């Protein structure tokens, strides 16, 4: 049992390191509290952004937490793959550069898995294979298939999204 856990732990740790590097300039990794007896302790997640000191994930800034959380979620997939992902505004706290990298990452990931992401940002929406617009008319919701030209035109309320 311990062997199975350690093997999965190392696989997820490797995947975390690799996904994180795609999303940010820095490093992220997992550490066992008690490497000799994993089940008697916890699993730490650390992130090092840019030239800054490594920090425990819980003490990172808002946007840094968002990036490391996405990286951890995707790393878990290497041990337990889901066929699709539902992400609701996971880029809310990210600055422009990180959000754009997230969009590119999801575009790449979308070649192997299905992703349904809600986002208000054009820089992220423009990386999708398919864009769905939701709008309200007389108090009820409807949808429209969108392409990026209509969004960038700002053509009316229904295409309004974070510019």
């Amino acid at each position, binding site marked *: 049992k311990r062997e199975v*856990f350690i093997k*999965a*732990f190392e696989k*997820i740790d490797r995947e975390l390191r690799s996904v994180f590097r795609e999303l940010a300039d820095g490093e992220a990794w997992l550490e066992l*509290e008690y490497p000799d007896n994993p*089940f008697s*302790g*916890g*699993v*730490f997640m650390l992130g090092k952004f840019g030239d800054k000191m490594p920090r425990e*994930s*819980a003490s990172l800034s*808002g946007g840094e*937490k*968002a990036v490391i*959380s996405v990286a951890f*979620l995707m790393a*878990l*997939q290497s*041990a*337990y*793959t*889901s*066929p*699709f*992902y*539902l*992400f*609701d*505004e*996971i880029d*809310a706290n990210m600055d422009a550069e990180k959000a754009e990298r997230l969009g590119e990452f*999801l575009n790449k990931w*979308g*070649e192997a898995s*299905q*992703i*349904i*992401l*809600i*986002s*208000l940002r054009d820089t*992220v929406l423009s*990386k*999708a*294979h*398919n*864009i*769905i*617009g*939701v709008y*309200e008319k007389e108090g*009820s*919701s*409807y*949808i429209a*298939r969108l392409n990026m030209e209509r969004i960038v035109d700002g053509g009316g309320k*229904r295409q*309004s*999204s974070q510019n």
Partner: protein
Amino acid sequence: VYISKLEIRGFKSFEKNVTIELARGFNAVSGQNGSGKSNIIDAIRFVLGENSPKSLRESKMSSLINEKAKIKQGRVSIQIVNDNHALPVQEETVNITRELFEDGSQKYFLNGKRSTRNAIIDLLLSARISFDGINIVPQGALNRIAETTPAERRAILEDIV
């Protein structure tokens, strides 16, 4: 497997029947605040078997029915393409429908035939699909993943293995 189509009627802000076609890869959903984007996620969780109204941002299940709907019934259908047969059935596409009535009663349908929540949940689990998996991140919930304690994180890894 992937979701090819979603049909929502009388559920939350979707008064009239709305069909959403999804691509195999990276789909993005956008629109103004309050337009109904998160309600789409709620609809997917609902049809996959979510029974906790709190997880669908309501205090009771009957609140999920659209307030304006002439027929007080909520209905969500999902079409899953079974290309790799991760769902252990013959069919190439699997259709699941869930109906919710004002008195709180519910009906589930699998490929047109009446079914049960348990049967559908078991079927979906073989393709690693569940209404509350780690692959679903509701609005505002992302950063909790960075904020879990080391003990909780170990538990997450143990569950996965």
